[in-house]
């Protein structure tokens, strides 16, 4: 029998998400009393910054907490920091995002802050029920946030498509959970692992894992569960697009890593399984990159680009080795957070200026606003994986992971070499469409009526933070790498 004092002790580890949950509820309540919704922005910023600070405190425990529901270990703490940081930047980006209806700012911020807490809970869940609940929490908040531009048909369409697709994937995932429960007799991940240890591979576990992959794949935008991405990304308010592309995706990767590392090592068929994931990863990046080449809308283009980026990260999973996989995936996500959010900051400024988000709207940006043009240039270079920027470090580590896996003769080694080749080819394709944007910014002339973009304080802050950290991860990767390696899940 666990009493109040034990639970209270365990609450220490839940401070970041506790703060966000409280802040979300307080924002929803304050919204009912304050006249101007804008006055809630400082509260949301304070909450996200506070949560990031609390998550940075070295408070972690490898013990199961709350009766095995969660485990607030270093790995979870990494994603807490990640989520709070992403949330802070997204709140900054939302402040000057014009299309957001002023009447609903309270609800917007409240739900956004709660969604960040959902990511944190997702990253630390060690029980299938808890995983499902936090995943649904995150999804539900995301559907609502995507549809927030109530007078915009595209936003409504985006929300509906996202919802229908998500409901479908979640249902399949839930079926997978049920099968996994049937096969192992437990909902707790450690118990499931113990049940699978030294057991023959059965078709049931294969099917369960495949079904579960549908739910997680939907969150990280893995092919063939990517179909929602272009419409949802285009229709959503741009800060929410940015949130989906980093926050929600990171949540998906967190739970994917945890389930992979907790449940899989016990199964004797995981080489085949890794081949499946690898092939899916190659499909994911190829589909994302090839379709991105023909996009004219910036948000759609970045959407397809984010599908491709998910493919790169998934390749990191192919080498199921704790020494390589986790740091590679985590450093990639960290670099991706800053470069992708930075690119979306520029998109917001452009949309505020011209009212739309086409590549043509960037024409002659280098004359109208050199700062924006050069920042965008940096972010795109980083996304393309050009040294010495953050994206390069991420891609380098994924690549190195594959090559190391090959050299160390891990099972399926030859396949890994092919995956590495696919990664290189895809980087070239990606460079094509990133440079289409660069071409518009630097080599095309502005249409006459185009105004000079004005960047307000919050957006400028978000821009500088993204810029500095994109450089920092690329130029001084060692401290980040050390940190990330310390935060990896313990090897089993």
């Amino acid at each position, binding site marked *: 029998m666990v009493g109040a004092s034990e639970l209270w002790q365990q609450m220490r580890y839940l401070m970041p998400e506790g703060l966000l949950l409280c802040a979300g509820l307080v924002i929803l309540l304050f919204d009912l009393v304050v006249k101007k919704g804008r006055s809630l922005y400082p509260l949301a910023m304070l909450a996200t910054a506070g949560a990031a600070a609390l998550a940075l405190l070295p408070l972690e425990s490898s013990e199961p907490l709350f009766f095995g529901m969660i485990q607030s270990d270093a790995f979870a703490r990494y994603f807490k920091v990640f989520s709070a940081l992403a949330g802070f930047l997204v709140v900054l980006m939302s402040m000057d995002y014009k299309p957001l209806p002023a009447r609903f700012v309270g609800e917007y911020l409240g739900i956004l802050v709660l969604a960040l807490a959902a990511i944190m809970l997702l990253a630390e869940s060690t029980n299938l029920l808890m995983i499902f609940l936090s995943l649904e929490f995150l999804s539900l908040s995301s559907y609502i946030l995507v549809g927030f531009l109530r007078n915009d048909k595209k936003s409504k369409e985006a929300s509906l498509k996202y919802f229908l697709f998500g409901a479908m994937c979640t249902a399949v995932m839930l079926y997978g959970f049920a099968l996994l429960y049937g096969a192992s007799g437990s909902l707790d991940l450690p118990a499931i692992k113990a049940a699978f240890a030294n057991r023959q591979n059965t*078709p049931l576990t294969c099917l369960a894992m495949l079904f579960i992959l549908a739910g997680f794949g939907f969150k990280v935008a893995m092919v063939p569960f990517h179909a929602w991405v272009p419409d949802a990304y285009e229709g959503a308010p741009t800060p929410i697009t940015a949130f989906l592309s980093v926050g929600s995706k990171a949540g998906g990767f967190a739970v994917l890593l945890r389930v992979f590392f907790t449940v899989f090592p016990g199964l004797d068929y995981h080489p085949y399984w890794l081949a499946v994931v690898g092939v899916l990863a190659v499909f994911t990046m190829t589909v994302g990159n090839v379709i991105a080449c023909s996009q004219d809308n910036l948000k759609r283009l970045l959407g397809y680009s984010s599908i491709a980026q998910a493919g790169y990260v998934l390749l990191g999973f192919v080498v199921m080795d704790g020494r390589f996989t986790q740091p590679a995936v985590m450093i990639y996500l960290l670099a991706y957070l800053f470069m992708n959010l930075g690119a979306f900051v520029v998109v917001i400024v452009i949309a505020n200026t011209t009212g739309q988000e086409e590549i043509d709207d960037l024409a002659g940006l280098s004359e109208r606003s050199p700062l924006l043009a050069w920042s965008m240039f940096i972010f795109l270079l980083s996304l393309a994986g050009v040294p010495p920027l953050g994206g390069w470090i991420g891609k380098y580590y994924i690549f190195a992971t594959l090559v190391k896996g090959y050299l160390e003769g891990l099972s399926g080694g030859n396949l890994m070499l092919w995956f590495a080749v696919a990664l290189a080819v895809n980087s070239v394709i990606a460079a094509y469409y990133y440079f289409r944007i660069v071409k518009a910014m630097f080599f095309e002339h502005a249409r006459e009526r185009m105004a000079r973009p004005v960047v307000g304080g919050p957006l400028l802050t978000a821009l500088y933070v993204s810029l500095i950290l994109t450089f920092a991860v690329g130029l001084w990767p060692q401290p980040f790498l050390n940190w990330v390696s310390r935060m990896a899940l313990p090897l089993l």
Partner: protein
Amino acid sequence: MDEILAKSAQSSAPALWVGAAFAVSFGLVVAGSLGAALLKNLLHAVLFLALALLGVAGLFLMLSSTFLFVVQILVYVGGVVILLIFGVMLTSKMAQPDIPPRNRQTLAAALLALLLFCATAYVLTTHPWMVSAEPPAVPVAEIGVGLLQKYVLPFEIVSVVLLVAMVGAIVLARREPESK
């Protein structure tokens, strides 16, 4: 499973009746789902969904989850279906929607669903399940203990999720009040 059937045969609760009750629930689920997926009139589709949900309630009962049985009827048949009916009645052309329930991809989708069904059915029928001799009857009080002990964190999170669902649905569904 056979033991239970044998037991029920001994105590003269004939297996035939059990089978019949199961068949009815199963039939309700299948017929209801088919109707919900294929009917053009949205309201009729929702009513068929209610049938399917009722069938699921029947399945819960057969699995001796009486609490879930009641919850299923109370929440799904009594609540969710009503909400769906209101939702349908909000749409302007509910009897004759422009979008047909079938399109070019129907065949492919049906084939995929069939494939998935066959794979699942094969796996479920061939797996050596560990069957407990005693049916797992869970008293309601035990569920309460679970909610307050082991599942206390999800229990509290559920309330936040419900709150988000409510606020979000209101934001999305609410009509813009007349501007002053």
